[in-house]
């Protein structure tokens, strides 16, 4: 089954500043490498801070844009992985190893399968 692991955390927790970010990088590399070696990694990205976000809606055919995220919440989406594993227990086991799990949260969302 395919799952999206959606990585949320508050922006004021976890590594702050470039040095701390860099210090955390090896743990992300090793997690990603482990996931890839095991053949479960279908891709993923880290996202820039929500201050860089633009939200767009189309209403009555008109484009409305807002500077900022879709919803003002403390925990924001910071990145994601798409993984292919056997079941939810395996997905949970991988989610547990994500470097941001100790200070953020990982939403495990099944990917919709389009029937052929």
């Amino acid at each position, binding site marked *: 089954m395919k799952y999206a692991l959606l990585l949320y955390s508050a922006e004021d927790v976890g590594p702050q500043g470039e040095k701390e970010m860099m210090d955390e990088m090896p743990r992300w590399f090793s997690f990603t490498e482990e996931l890839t070696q095991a053949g479960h990694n279908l891709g993923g990205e880290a996202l820039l801070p929500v201050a860089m976000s633009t939200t767009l809606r189309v209403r009555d055919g008109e484009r409305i844009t807002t500077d900022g995220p879709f919803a003002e919440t403390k925990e924001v989406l910071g990145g994601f992985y798409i993984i292919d594993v*056997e*079941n*939810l227990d395996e*997905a*949970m086991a991988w989610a547990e190893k994500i470097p941001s799990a100790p200070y953020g949260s990982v939403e*495990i969302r*099944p990917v919709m399968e389009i029937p052929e």
Partner: protein
Amino acid sequence: MDASISFDEVFRTEWSRLVAVLVRDFGDLELAEDCAQDAFVQANRTWIGGDGVPDRPGAWLTTTARRRAIDVIRRSSRYQDKLAELDVKAKRGPERSTTGDLVDERLTLLLGCCHPALNLEAQVALTLRLVAGLTTEQIARGFLVEDNTMRKRITRAKAKIRQAGIPFYPVDANVLRVRLGAVLHVIYLIFTEGHSSHSAAQLVRGDLCDEAAWLAGLLARLVPEDSEVHGLHGLILLTDARRSTRVDADGLALMLEDQNRCEWDRAQIQHGLAALGRAIQLGPLGVFGLQALLASLHATAATFTDTDWPRIVRTYDMLLQLHSSPVIELNRAIAVSYADGPHAGLREIEPLREILNGYLYFHSATAELRRRLGDTAGAGEGYRLALGCAPSSAEERFLNSRLATLGGDGGENESA
């Protein structure tokens, strides 16, 4: 055929095994449940219709349900992807687990129903439906919700299991160790809901107590080496042995000291003590084991005054070391009031006032202590505060009856 086995007994012993085997073989909860149900309907017709219960009803049911499942799969497009898998299974013939370290299918089913990705309400409902074999309507009645609400809850849980890929695969010892606590919690919750329904007009709903006792007994057979499993089984048996005396003829709650101990179920107390004995052997006792120990001290005291209160206080101390909770501290304070007198009890209870201010039993316990000290006004105030804590109708009647007894003479005996 064995005429002494009734259809109901067969249902009791075979339902969960049948569902579990079907889930294992076909990997689909809904299919398993439907086919198990169909097999029992057919069994009812065939057996009651004249053939009687066969020698091995379990085998009969499994064959019937399996045949039905294969039939459904062949005819339904939803299950097309299962056909290939099924051919493999068919070649292997009727399943016996091939690896030695697989645990009993029913335990797998139980652990699946209590998967941490399901919310607690869903875990409880699924356990009662799939393991205990209650109908949706029975579960709804047990939890005092509309049939439709319960049906939706179960449907959503089953949809999540399927769509989110919650596995029911054979469990190894590690999964069991991690998830056993959740199963114990679910069974305990079923029991407390039956034992002390706060929302119901009636105080005890025996059906749920029976189901909890049966589930705990099943778990004790499946996981015989775990102390807490036996502890929970003992706790349920020992507490529920007092069921018939917990309310009077009018459904009014009776306090422990007013219960007729001759009517306590002695056989069940013996079973409960045996379970507690096993828990102690496997010990050290956990949270459920210690509560069973408390229940055993009550269950074996000849009279209320014979109760070994100092030992009960010490047992509460052990319990608080494992699990600190203001409600347990409240119960400890009440025990202190019987060990060392109501003054001592009040000293222990007062510090809890702030945190338990909205808790009905805090105010009624305080009122009892004041009543025992002859403080009628203080007692009356306590009962009235308790009445302000959204009591169930049974609790309300109880509190009003206590208020009525205060009348002009609140100062009855002090040693209770």
